[in-house]
Every structure is written in C-alpha cells, then in structure tokens.
C-alpha cells in the first residue's frame, strides 16, 4: 500500500513536470522557434561550466528559505504568502548591519538580526491571527507591499549611496561578504546555511514535541486544543519562525550575492517559494531539491534567453504550468487510490 502511494507521487509529479515542459514547448512555437532546440540549449547551458553549475545553487539558496517560510506556516494550516516582504525586511537589516559594522563580525550579527527582524515582521501577522482572528493570508499579502515601499523609501533616503545617483546603498566592505565555498564560482556560505535551515526545520517538525504540536494544530486545531495545546501560541511562534526564515534570505542575497541593496531586488522569490513548497508537498528536504530544480531552470533560462532569443519569462511560465499540474496531480492520486480500493471490493465480493 505504502509503496503504491510513493509510486503514485513519483509518477504524477514526473508527469506534472513533463506536461509543464510540453505546454511551454507549445508556447515556444508561437515564437516560431523549435522547442526541442530551445530546450536543448536550456538544459545544456545549465551545465556548461563550473561557474554556471555554481550559479544554480546560488539561485536556489534564497528560494529554499522562502519555500521553508511558506511550508512552515502551512504545516500549522496558516498561510504566510508574505515571504517576499519578510525577505525585504531581512535585506534591509542585513545591509544596515553590514554598513554599520564593516568587519567579519557583521556576518553573525546580520544573520541573527535579519532572522529576528523578519521574525518580528512575520510575528505581527501571527499576533493578528491569534489575537484578532484576522485573516493572515490577506495581511501577509498586503504587508509585502508595505515592506517594499519601506525599502524603497530607505533606499532613496538614509540608505542611499553617497553619490546620490541611484536608489541603492554603498557596496559592502569585502569583509562582510559571505565567504565562497567553491572557488571560481559565486557559490557562498549562504547555501550551506539554507541546507542547515531545511534540515533543522525538518527536525523541528518531525522529531520534536513542538513540531508535533504545530502539525497537530495544522491538521485538526480542535483536537489539538482538546489535548492541551494552545493554538494561538502556535500561530504566533510559527509565524515568527516563518518570517525569520524568509528574513535569512536577505542575508544570503545581500551579503552573499549582491553585496549591496538596490531597488527592485529579487522581486519574485516569495511567489516562487510558494510554488516550490507546493511542488515539494511542504517537505523541507523535498524543498531543497525543488529549489535546485527551479534554480537550474532560471540559470538555464537566462542563458537560453541570450542564446536563442526566447525570452527568459518562459521559465516563469513553465514553473506556473508545473505548479498547476502538481496541484492537479493531488486529485489524480486520490482518484487512483479510491478506484483501487473500490476495485478490490468489487472483485472480492461479486
């Protein structure tokens, strides 16, 4: 029984990805390009050299964090769709810390403070949900726009570069950069941090009593309450952790990749994180692999855009298709399972 279920998941998710590719291939036909050669370029360009392979993991890093952020609250049956905003808050914190402390000390301080800042921003949503029964989904969505505007404001005022030309900060001192883990690439310590975060989240959720309570609240809030769990506290803490995780993406992007903060910074990692979490069925370890897949598609897509003339937005489209098919596959699996059970009954008794 268990084997059949696992097999179903693998089959349906495989088909979801394949169907996503096919539909995007059809879209490519609109550009009067050959989808096979375009996909050929896409996949070969991902692995063309060490630097590019490194880029895949660089791109995957923040996605792991935002996907974990969504998945963590999702386990408590909450919807934090504001990881983008929490990421901005984390970025603002990271850049401020690194500008104020231009030494290696900035790194641990930025990690801690970005987590806290993102966590506080997210915790506000948890409190609204717990204490005012407000719709966390709406609030987290709206708060992203507020965070964006806050960042834009700071970028053209106190955080603005001294030249005063562009809405961006000064470049960070080299000592505050996250160190590289593979030479001749941009792959930095942030990736390790992301893996650690994913493993930690998995351990919390599936090995600790606290994580158990989160899942219990998520799956049956009433039963959890009757067992002595206080769902309100679970809401607040899950949102703090979730916001903190998204905040950490700020450190990896500011100190690890961009080495400054600028307007229009990574505008879609929040949304992609949700997609990745859906793809991975909320499993933290699955999220690592799904993020790497999305990272690879983005890296390949960007190069493909330069080489084949197909706009790289095809990648977003492809991801969208895959997500929709992954959701549909939940239905397909349920149907298969029900039919199997029914067939057994009819065969056994007719």
């Amino acid at each position, binding site marked *: 029984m268990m084997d059949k279920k696992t097999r179903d998941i693998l089959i349906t998710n495989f088909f979801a990805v394949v169907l996503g590719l096919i539909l995007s291939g059809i879209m490519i036909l609109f550009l009067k390009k050959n989808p096979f050669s375009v996909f050929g370029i896409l996949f070969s360009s991902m692995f063309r050299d060490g630097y590019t392979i490194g880029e895949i993991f660089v791109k995957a890093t923040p996605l792991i964090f935002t996907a974990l952020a969504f998945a963590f609250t999702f386990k408590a049956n909450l919807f934090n769709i504001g990881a983008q905003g929490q990421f901005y808050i984390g970025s603002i914190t990271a850049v401020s810390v690194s500008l104020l402390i231009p030494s290696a000390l900035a790194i641990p301080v930025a990690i801690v403070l970005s987590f806290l800042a993102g966590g506080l921003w997210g915790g506000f949503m948890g409190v609204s949900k717990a204490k005012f029964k407000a719709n966390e989904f709406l609030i987290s969505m709206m708060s992203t726009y507020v965070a964006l*505007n*806050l960042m834009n404001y700071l970028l053209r005022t106190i955080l603005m570069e001294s030249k005063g030309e562009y809405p961006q900060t000064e470049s960070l001192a080299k000592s505050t950069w996250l160190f590289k883990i593979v030479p001749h690439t941009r792959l930095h310590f942030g990736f390790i941090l992301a893996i650690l975060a994913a493993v930690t989240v998995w351990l919390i959720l599936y090995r600790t009593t606290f994580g158990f309570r989160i899942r219990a609240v998520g799956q049956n809030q009433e039963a959890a309450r009757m067992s002595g769990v206080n769902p309100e506290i679970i809401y607040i803490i899950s949102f703090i952790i979730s916001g903190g995780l998204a905040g950490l993406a700020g450190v990896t992007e500011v100190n690890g990749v961009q080495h400054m903060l600028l307007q229009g910074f990574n505008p879609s990692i929040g949304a*992609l994180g949700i997609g990745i979490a*859906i793809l991975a069925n909320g499993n933290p370890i699955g999220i690592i692999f799904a993020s790497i897949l999305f990272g690879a598609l983005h890296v390949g897509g960007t190069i493909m855009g330069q080489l084949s003339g197909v706009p790289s*937005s095809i990648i977003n*489209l492809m*991801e*969208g298709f895959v997500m*929709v098919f992954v959701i549909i596959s939940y*239905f397909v699996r349920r149907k298969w399972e029900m039919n199997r059970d029914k067939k057994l009954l009819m065969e056994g008794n007719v």
Partner: protein
Amino acid sequence: MLINLFSRAVLMSTPLLLGSLSEVFSERTGVMVTAIEGIFLMGAWAGFTAAYITGSLAMGLLYAALSGLLVAMLYAYIVVTLKQHQIVTGTAINILILGLCSFLQRVVFGVPLSPLTVEPLQKIAIPLLSKIPFIGPIFFQQNILTYSIYVLVPLGYFILYKTSLGLVIRSTGENPEAVDVSGISVSRVRFVTVSISGIICGIAGAFYSIGYLGKFTTNMIGGRGWIAFAICFLGNWNPIGAFVGTLIFGLAEAFAILMQANASTILPNELFISLPYILTIVLTISRKSFNVPSKLGVAYYEEH
C-alpha cells in the same frame, strides 16, 4: 481640487468594485477567487493587446472578458471540480498568469523601442446630470465602466436577495448539502458563479490598462486584485458593503496619487503608495466580520 480628488476616487474605485462584487457572489457560493490577482492581470494584458491590435477599445473589453473567463474556468475546474485547495491553487495560477503575460507581451510586441500606448476610455458627460454642481463632475463625468457600476451594485443586491438565483447562491455557501438535497448541483452553481466572476474581473483588469492609463506593464495590478478580495471581506459579503468599501479605497488611492503629484515634502511618497495596503491591514485587524459564508473555502463532495 476636491472635485478632482473625489472624481478620481470614483474612477479608481471602479475596478475594485467590479472585483469585489465578483468576489461577493463567488464567496457567497463558498469559493474564494484567490486567482483574482491573476485574472486582473490577464484582463489587463488581453484588453490592452486586443485594443492595440484592433484599435477598438470595445474589442479590448471583449477580449479582457474572455481571457478572464478562461482563467476563472481553469481555477474553477481545479477548486470546484477537482476540489483542490483554494489558496494554494490561486497562488499557483497567479504565478502562471504573471509568467504568461510577460511571455505573451514579448511574443506579441517583441522589445519595443518606445512605450506602447492606446487611447484610454473617454469620459462621457451625461447630459444634465453632469451639470449638477459638485455631484455632477464627480459622478457623471466618468467612463463607461464606471457607469456600469452604478447599475451593477443595485442589480447585484437585487439578484442576491430578491431572486431564486440569489437564494441558491447564498444557500450554497452556507450549507451546500441543503442545496444538493434540493436537487441543485452545488458544483454547477459554484463553477458558473466563479466563471461569471472571471468575466467581470477580466474587465476590471482591463480598466487598469485601457480604461485609464492606456498602457500595459506586468506589475500594473500591484495587489489591486487582493484589495478587491479584501474589500469583499471588509464589506461583509454584501454588495452594498462592497460599494462602501471600494469608495473608501478609491479615495485612498486617489489621495495617494494626488499627494504624489504634488510632491509633498513632509511625508514620503511611499507612505501614500502604501496607504491602501496599510488600510487593508488595519481594517482586517480591527473589523469583526460577520456574515462569513459558513462553508467559505471548503470543498463540497457530492455523494455518489
């Protein structure tokens, strides 16, 4: 100045009202249209593209409506027919539509050297009424979409509370089993309502591209769909509530535009841009909602 502000408020509340009215109907059947942001964007793109190519705003609106219908039907198929999670599905569709619109924009227009524009909907002054001092210029010198809301609000109220269709819609969100047992297909009620909402939301989206600015960018919706979604909650799932809510938001938005145009030095522009979002947050927290359809967001499994 004040007339200008209010007139713009009415203008800005038009798409929000179309969107939130659609939400009211869908949510009364138990389905949140969480794909609304994507439907708005799709409508904005299709409306602009059709208008640009055919040179006809009417064609633009038609295509916006059609594209909204298609996206809504995809959404309804997944959440109503296949009974998948509404928030998760909506999020995925929103991402899909963002990708689709960016891609199609590029397919159709390539990389244009100068910004593409169309002439937006013209204001039509209604004879006599538009001459009423103060009221006239605010309410009766608007474009055709804005006028449509004057009809849609009372019509929506009438349908919801005075017709058998409205009774079925309201019952479906409260107790779908009762509807099922009465011999009406819950799935059909939900599917059709969401589809019609899609048509209206598609037009609402087109308002942002061809109703007002005359151009299209992929970030032009910027959460407006979500605000319409929020207004439905804040207006207690009632067309009149939605109307009042949209006026407040329209005013906030008009105020923000006015303040930006006048480059206030005391308070930062970003604060005004954030105003509708902050307002949503504050209202969501402070306002106790009632009338919540009991089965909002819950899939209904017909017994077979």
